[in-house]
């Protein structure tokens, strides 16, 4: 009876064959390590953001007079509103932490290389979209930091010669950040960007499943097949990786629950104390800083202090910031190494990647600190390292001596 029903469905909509193709008959290298669960973590957090976001939107009001109050209403009067809101704020920080590890893994094992360039590009677009999603979302509670953060970032457009003011006004819909800005950010945050993110998630995973996962050794498993055409070093995703992922996802959710329930503000890193004050257009906070996950890029922005060609330093800072994100997209073409995984790349690659990771972390640390001479200097040196990693990559990956890659995992 059940089988008959399933067959009836499958003839009209091939759900079963779809599941087979992507789970029980989807072959994955058997040596995927802990870093490979971060993609699943990201998916789980996306889902959590979607659900909590929907519930927040039920009680939130996007007007300047009521936005702040409606958040307090959610926190104090809506049943479990505090839980939903803290899951959403903590979720955003978790998602970015997860994405940074996910990107780190892809860079470590050269997963962006042929044939996964599209997987990488769609991933990169997802990162850009999530940044936009987080930026627009942060304005919504209409606290001091929401307001002034948005004011600082949107006013970056003003420094573009000739057309800057018009562009900034076009983004904000007003001369300064105002209710018009709040409403359009709300629309983008709850509908515009999520729809695009959904589309890109589909593309990211489809393109991955078309070519299959890379692995920590960067060995191409499709080269060694058994008699039936199944890769020798692969195992089906289901049940092996479903049970493995399930375990790690629960572990991650445990950590998530602990943060949500015990330290939702994460000592000021996930929810800033200035945001407990309603936006005040007349009083600029002493120290305007973005949340930690934008700190590395914000540091690059602040590291530029020299005006050039008669244009403000801020403009060049902004340009470098965008460039720093854009260069990531070019990685598949900057890396000319014959091997994928860093394990088998040469000494220069290993050294440069180490430096790159250190510079990125120091940029992050400088970005959350108030500006001072030491922080500025460290940020400048780190920016230099960040850019040289990408710009020198075509040379050091081409000329260095690599190790031999084994032919089995």
């Amino acid at each position, binding site marked *: 009876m059940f089988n008959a029903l399933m067959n009836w469905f499958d003839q009209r909509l091939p759900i079963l064959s779809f599941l087979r193709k992507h789970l029980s008959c989807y072959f994955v290298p058997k040596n995927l390590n802990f870093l490979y669960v971060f993609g699943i973590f990201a998916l789980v957090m996306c889902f959590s953001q979607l659900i909590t976001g929907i519930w927040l939107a039920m009680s939130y009001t996007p007007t300047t007079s009521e936005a702040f109050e409606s958040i307090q209403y959610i926190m104090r009067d809506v049943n479990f509103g505090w839980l939903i809101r803290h899951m959403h704020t903590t979720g955003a920080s978790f998602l970015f932490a997860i994405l940074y590890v996910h990107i780190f893994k892809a860079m470590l094992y050269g997963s962006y290389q042929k044939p996964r360039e599209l997987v990488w590009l769609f991933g990169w677009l997802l990162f850009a979209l999530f940044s936009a999603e987080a930026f627009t979302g942060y304005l919504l509670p209409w606290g001091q930091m929401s307001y002034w953060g948005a004011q600082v970032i949107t006013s970056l457009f003003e420094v573009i010669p000739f057309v800057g003011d018009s562009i900034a006004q076009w983004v904000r819909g007003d001369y300064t950040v105002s209710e018009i800005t709040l409403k359009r950010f709300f629309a983008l945050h709850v509908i515009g960007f999520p729809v695009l993110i959904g589309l890109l998630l589909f593309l990211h995973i489809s393109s991955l499943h078309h070519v299959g996962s890379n692995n920590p050794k960067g060995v191409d498993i499709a080269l060694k097949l058994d008699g039936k055409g199944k890769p020798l070093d692969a195992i089906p995703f289901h049940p092996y990786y479903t049970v493995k992922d399930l375990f790690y996802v629960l*572990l991650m959710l445990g950590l998530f629950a602990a943060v*949500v*329930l015990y330290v939702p503000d994460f000592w000021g890193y996930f929810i800033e104390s200035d945001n407990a004050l309603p936006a005040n257009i007349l009083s600029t906070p002493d120290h305007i800083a973005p949340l930690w996950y934008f700190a590395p890029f914000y540091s690059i922005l602040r590291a530029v202090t020299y005006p050039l060609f008669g244009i403000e330093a801020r403009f060049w800072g902004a340009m470098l910031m965008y460039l720093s994100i854009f260069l990531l997209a070019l990685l598949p073409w900057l890396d000319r190494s014959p091997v994928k995984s860093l394990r088998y790349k040469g000494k220069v690659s290993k050294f440069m990647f180490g430096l790159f990771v250190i510079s990125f972390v120091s940029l992050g640390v400088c970005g959350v600190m108030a500006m001072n001479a030491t922080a500025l200097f460290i940020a400048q040196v780190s920016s230099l390292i960040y850019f040289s990693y990408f710009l020198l990559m075509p040379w050091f990956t081409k000329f260095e001596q690599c190790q031999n890659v084994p032919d089995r995992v």
Partner: protein
Amino acid sequence: MKVLDDSAVRFVGNIFLLMGLMLFSSVGLASQAKPYYIGEYEKNTDRDSIERGFVTYMQFCASCHKSEYVRHRRISADLEIPWEEYKEKWLGGAGNLPVFLSNSWTSDTAKEVFGVVPPDLSLIAAQKSPDWLYRYLHSFYADSSQPLGSNNLLAPNVKMPNVLAFMQGVIEKQSCVNGDQKGADQCITLVKTEQGVMEDHEFSAAIQDLTNFFVYLSEPSRLEAELLAPKVLLFILVFCLIAYLLKREFWKDIPK
């Protein structure tokens, strides 16, 4: 011990004498100006402490400050004060009961009287840190140059009167460097010159309670969250364990 010779005994004796002298002289100094010691805020979510803080708030702060995001009903429920009793005690019984922790100041009249509108305190512990709040409430001192006769180390020229002075006693500002004007501005200590109705430790306990109340006020769900947390974590842990065993079972057939 018997083998200790005379010189050693004298040496030890001299040290004691020296220490005694030092102690004596410091007591002598202190009787002129005993530095006012402010302890550390210790976070706790003890309901009784929060309730004592609430009483202090209603008696000494609520007349000027509003906490308009907070409902009376919520406080009565969280602090387990029966609503009838709460109503009698704090809201004057029957009639048109206020819903939120508000008062009758309008911003215009408040501005006229104080020069500023006293800030809403619903979120004060989240805006400032609890430690800041704890120190702020200890750091008022007498200052005749101020219109209200008092000032605050943490909020210079604050326009709030020192409403708890009668409990704390008279606190004055003293420079810890003599003479040199420049250093004197940098280094300031508070000294207590007159006893209030409370001993120092009693006053600190009262401020501790008040701060606990403000911490509660800025996130009332904290109490609920910390009750829920162990249950949720245990639940996830159990599932985690099952998932781990499941994983180990399946992965047994995969050769390394």
